[in-house]
């Protein structure tokens, strides 16, 4: 028997098998296995034939006859899964499909980050804090500053303020007669309405509750462009008939009346007086912000006297510009009307002008700058986070040099390496962004309890598609910011060095320089933030340590609303409070009790809910000269006016409105106790 070398016979059979497997998409490994297996079969057969006495040619012929003529092997193999395998990825080599390249890059990125869990987690945590803070602030900015007001054509909605530069009032509330003249004489507005914030005691459907409300002129809802969800709003007839009709807010309707549409046409008890429920406003409507229900401003109601007084400033005015009328043109017209009124009523309207301010600017104006500053600070925090992560990646570079050199040796170009390294950064940034969005969501949930009461549109703050898009873009940008430097450096190093690690010292030196630059940038940004934070803390401490003129410790304030139906006369009111105060004084633990009220010009009892608090130390002439008409900055008293009855505080009005001074009747105990305003 011819003694053929094993290798040469198997090599021959391998060639025969391989030729019959052409055209199949076998993986190289699998093809090698099949070739080996079939070659063994053919070789075993050939050797048996030789052992049986056949010649080499006969044995070879008989062995090759095990194959049928034609491409049967390929044909029978074709339906099998292994014959249609996806070729394995070759690191660095293009697959010819952008999507396939992208999938490959993502797989490598995930694997690379998975191998270094500590670094990945540290980076994700750091980025989550930075991106989360940005997303949270952007959510607030989006809702407060960017989102338009929830009214039709919100750009045409305006606030009209009284403007008196001679007295130093840039924006003041209006008087009813002035408002009526504006409405009558102006053609620039398709609707003008006025309102005053107030409150009621609701004694319907559950425990008595204090309800924030607004008294509005006819056309208020039409000016805003919002129709009721159920029923109707007020007309001129309702105002003429008095205040005894109400429109409920959606929230109040849900919580107190079970969301039952049948309440329309029914009645509710407000301040002990029955009011017909005319309608219910839709969800999301709320102007002014705190109002839970609305009643008409009636000439015969509690503000009757004020509605006649041209010199009594108490109303806020809204207006909707007529389509096609520019704000500048409307301002010019209102200036002419104001000049005419000045001539007509020199005693009350001397120097009085009108200022038109877009409603959106009015609502968000006070918070725009602080929010934008906060946004900037959050951006700085993110920059610091990026610098931190960049430093981590730079420090990691040394351990990856060989891996990248191998990839370069296998055919990955510099661009491909750069793309793969940036993809690793992007994976970290996306994970950080997702975690950051979760942190932002938690922060937004806590916002109602943490945010200052002066933050407008609080109920509009929520994470929506734009916030998610912003977070995504922030993540991508962050990946580029912190990933580009290390990626460029590593890709260049891998492409420029061989597996023999030539130039390692030079590469390490470059890395240290880059880390120094990043660290310097990080310190600079952090310093700016620390200085800014320090200034804010100093302002906060100063504000909190300001001498209020009284000691607010151990003082409680109580606001009482007496129903007008039962306490219409002064003796009734005085009797109630005498009894109330004496009962409070009898309580153990109560050191002193006092109360104060304020009487405005005219004889009508005031019903504006002003907050007042003070405690003058005994026997001290604490009075400071009152300063009237200052722009409110807080809800704290800012000064006092002293009269025969004693010292009374300057009460601060609701936000965005200027206060005015008034005399106050004070009880004997009011100078030992901080008291709250009681409407009488």
């Amino acid at each position: 028997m011819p003694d053929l070398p094993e290798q040469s016979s198997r090599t021959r059979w391998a060639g025969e098998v391989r030729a019959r497997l052409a055209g199949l998409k076998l993986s190289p490994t699998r093809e090698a296995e099949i070739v080996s297996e079939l070659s063994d079969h053919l070789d075993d057969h050939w050797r048996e034939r030789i052992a049986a006495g056949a010649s080499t040619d006969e044995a070879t012929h008989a062995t090759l006859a095990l194959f049928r003529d034609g491409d049967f092997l390929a044909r029978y193999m074709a339906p099998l899964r292994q014959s249609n395998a996806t070729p394995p990825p070759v690191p660095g080599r293009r697959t010819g499909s952008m999507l396939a390249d992208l999938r490959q890059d993502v797989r490598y990125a995930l694997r690379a980050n998975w191998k270094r869990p500590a670094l990945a987690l540290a980076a994700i945590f750091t980025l989550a804090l930075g991106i989360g803070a940005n997303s949270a602030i952007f959510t607030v900015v989006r809702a407060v500053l960017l989102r338009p007001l929830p009214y039709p054509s919100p750009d045409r909605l305006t606030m009209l303020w009284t403007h008196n530069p001679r007295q130093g009032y840039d924006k003041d509330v209006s008087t009813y007669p002035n408002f009526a003249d504006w409405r009558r004489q102006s053609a620039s507005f398709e609707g003008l309405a006025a309102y005053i914030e107030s409150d009621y005691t609701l004694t319907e459907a559950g425990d008595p509750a204090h309800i924030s409300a607004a008294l509005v002129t006819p056309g208020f809802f039409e000016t805003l462009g919002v129709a009721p969800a159920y029923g109707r709003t007020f007309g001129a007839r309702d105002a003429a008939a008095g205040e005894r009709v109400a429109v409920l807010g959606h929230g109040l309707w849900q919580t107190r009346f079970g969301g039952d549409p049948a309440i329309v046409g029914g009645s509710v008890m407000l301040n002990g007086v029955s009011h017909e429920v005319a309608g219910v406003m839709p969800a999301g409507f709320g102007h002014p912000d705190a109002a839970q229900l609305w009643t008409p401003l009636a000439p015969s109601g509690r503000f009757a006297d004020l509605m006649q007084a041209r010199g009594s400033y108490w109303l806020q005015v809204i207006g909707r510009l007529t389509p096609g009328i520019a704000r500048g043109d409307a301002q010019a017209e209102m200036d002419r009307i104001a000049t005419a009124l000045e001539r007509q009523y020199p005693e009350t309207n001397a120097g009085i002008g009108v200022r038109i301010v877009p409603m959106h600017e009015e609502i968000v104006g006070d918070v725009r700058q602080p929010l934008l500053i906060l946004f900037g600070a959050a951006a700085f925090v993110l920059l610091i986070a990026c610098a931190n992560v960049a430093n981590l990646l730079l420090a990691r570079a040394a351990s990856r040099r060989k891996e990248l050199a191998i990839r370069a040796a296998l055919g990955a170009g510099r661009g491909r390496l750069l793309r793969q390294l940036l993809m690793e950064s992007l994976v970290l940034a996306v994970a950080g962004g997702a975690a950051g969005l979760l942190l932002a969501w938690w922060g937004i949930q806590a916002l109602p309890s943490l945010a200052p009461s002066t933050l407008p549109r609080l109920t509009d703050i929520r994470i929506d598609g734009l916030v998610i898009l912003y977070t995504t873009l922030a993540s991508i940008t962050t990946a580029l910011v912190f990933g580009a430097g290390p990626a460029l450096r590593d890709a260049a190093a891998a492409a420029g060095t061989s597996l023999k690690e030539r130039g390692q010292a030079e590469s390490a030196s470059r890395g240290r320089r880059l880390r120094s630059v990043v660290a310097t940038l990080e310190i600079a940004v952090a310093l700016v933030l620390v200085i800014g934070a320090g200034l804010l803390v100093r302002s906060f401490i100063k504000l909190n340590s300001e001498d209020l003129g009284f000691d607010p410790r151990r003082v409680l304030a109580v606001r009482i609303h007496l129903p007008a139906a039962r306490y219409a006369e002064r003796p009734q009111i005085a009797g109630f409070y005498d009894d109330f105060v004496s009962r409070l004084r009898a309580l153990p633990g109560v050191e002193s009790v006092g109360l104060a009220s304020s009487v405005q010009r005219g004889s009508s009892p005031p019903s504006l809910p002003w907050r007042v608090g003070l405690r003058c130390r005994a026997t001290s002439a604490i009075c400071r000269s009152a300063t009237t008409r200052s722009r409110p900055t807080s809800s704290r008293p800012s000064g006092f006016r002293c009269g025969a009855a004693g010292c009374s505080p300057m009460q601060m009005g609701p936000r965005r409105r200027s206060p005015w001074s008034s005399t106050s009747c004070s009880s004997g105990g009011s100078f030992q106790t901080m008291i709250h305003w009681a409407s009488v």
Partner: protein
Amino acid sequence: MSDINTRALDRELKRGSAELLILSLLDARPRHGYDLSKLIHQRSGGDLTFHIDSLYPLLYRLEERGWIKGAWVEKPDERRRRFYKLTPTGRRVLAEQRRTWNAFVRAVRRVTGGQHA
């Protein structure tokens, strides 16, 4: 029976019983492809012959179904070979195929066996 009919019958019967043959031979013990080919030829008295280009695709198909499992085995002084063995699924399939085949054969015998005009 003519040659053409014999060849046609041979082809059809082989096609229907190929899986049963392979599974039943592997039931006893693991075997490699050449061993299977020889056994089939020997035990059938030469009536059944598997070409290499149909035997191995069949083995790979059974492997992809999970009825058999192949593994390379290297024994001392022997070349590395790929041995196949039945999986638990393969055993269940074999039992089912045996039942089916036996029922078929009995039915054919009842129809054709011992009854001449």
